[in-house]
């Protein structure tokens, strides 16, 4: 197994690593039993005139990850991709985008990219919930995520 240069770059110097103390939403995925955990912090700009909360924009995003080099690199590139996007577009970031952004991942490590995209999706869900509008987005409300990726 070998990591791409891009993975090693993000792993060695991850972007947007840390916490946001006054985050508008936090997405937490993973399972301490497998050992892999990820937390995505969002700072969202609420557009007062927009009716659709998914138009609100991610102005800051940070991650905390306990996991392998791939998990850390995926978190890092995910935050790069999501920053500045509105929630609707951010929600569309899939594992394949992350893998592509990293210039490929070893097959056994693809699940680490799912961890990252799921972390962001959960954070967006929490944001909608806090805004009291989650019921308007059944697709996001019914998001079901696996508990453990080590299977």
């Amino acid at each position, binding site marked *: *197994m070998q990591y791409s240069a891009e993975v090693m770059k993000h*792993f060695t110097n*991850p972007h947007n690593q840390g916490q946001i103390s006054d985050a508008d939403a936090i997405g937490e995925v993973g399972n301490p039993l497998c*050992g892999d955990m990820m937390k995505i912090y969002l700072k969202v700009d609420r557009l007062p005139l927009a009716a659709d909360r998914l138009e609100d924009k991610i102005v800051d995003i940070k991650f905390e990850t*306990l*996991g*392998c*080099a791939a*998990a850390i690199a995926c978190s890092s590139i995910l935050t790069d991709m999501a920053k500045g996007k509105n929630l609707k577009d951010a929600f569309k970031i899939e594992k394949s985008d992350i893998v592509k952004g990293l210039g490929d991942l070893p097959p*056994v490590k693809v699940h680490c990219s799912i961890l990252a995209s799921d972390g962001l999706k959960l954070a967006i869900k929490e944001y909608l919930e806090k805004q009291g509008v989650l019921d308007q987005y059944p697709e996001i409300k019914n998001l079901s995520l696996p508990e453990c990726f080590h299977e």
Partner: protein
Amino acid sequence: MPNQKIYFDHSATAPVDPEVFKAMAPFFSEIFGNASSIHGFGQAAQTAVDEAREAVAEFLGAKTNEVIFTSGATESDNLVILGLAKPGEQIITSKIEHPAILEACREMEKRGAEVTYLGVDAQGLVSLAELQKAIKAETRLVSIMYVNNEIGTIQPIAKIGEMIKELNQTRKEKIYFHTDAVQAANYCEMNVNKLGVDLMSLSAHKIYGPKGIGALYRRSGTPLKPIQFGGHQEAGLRPGTLNVPGIIGLGKAVELISQDKKNLGEIRKLRDYLIEEILKIIPKAQVNGDLKNRAPNNAHFSFYGVEGESLLLLLDQRGIAVSTGSACSSGSLEPSHVLMALGLNPLLAHGSLRITLGKFNTKKEIDRLIEVLPGIVEKLRKMSPLK
């Protein structure tokens, strides 16, 4: 010297000792004969093979016809597990064996044998009482590794050997006792009679010999069937043209062990110093596996809230090579079966780090690790959501 590469992964493999390399060199292009040929070319190779066989036999306190050369310990282990017990008979082994034993045992279960996998205590040691309890009329083979490849714990092989010998005196069907001694050869008593073993696996590349060569000790009279066919070599138990340079390398490697034995105290001192310093400097760290019954070159840590593969790669970037039992680095995404058998919390298995020293490591290199590791653990802990 930040750019100097440091190797702390000797349980994975060790460098070939220059003296071993020198001994092997003539056997590639100069003395290249097939040891089975009766012309001069072949006989020259045969003579050297005989000498190497004598060296291995002497190392083990065995007879030369009890030494079978194989391609390595995986083959030796397979030969024993697949070639001895019959369907309906029982094999007893432990949960912390090398996969070469465990997977071969699974295969034997498919072939109708019964396999009992003994657990270990939290220190990684097999209990004699439990082994004795598991033995029954159908027991044919007991296979317990000498030194564990991950945590370095030394199993009480001589005591097990004694127990089995005693049981055998009143049994109709003899129990044969095998040990995978790959990780023990550098450090432990290897006399097969003192240990009371009937079979023992060895590998050259863990003892500063070349890769792709190993041996199986088989006490005279121990029944064994070959697992490959096509030649008379090694009494038909391991057909195939002899790997002459490899065999010469193995012979030289065991000779050097006897010379090197006096330096064991040095390795132990370095290892103890490393453990002491790391536990002093890094909070929420622990050592896994028994500290007393342990190979002198093994240090196995767990760092809470850190993942082992990340740790390994950051150390690698600083030029230091180690190993981990983390699920993330296992390919199967399962945490190490050895650490699970110890009952280690999965989170601690996740943050495990194995450091195995070798005879060429220096105090300076240990100091470099002690200097670099705390910062790396801290960096990863900062990144982690688990505080």
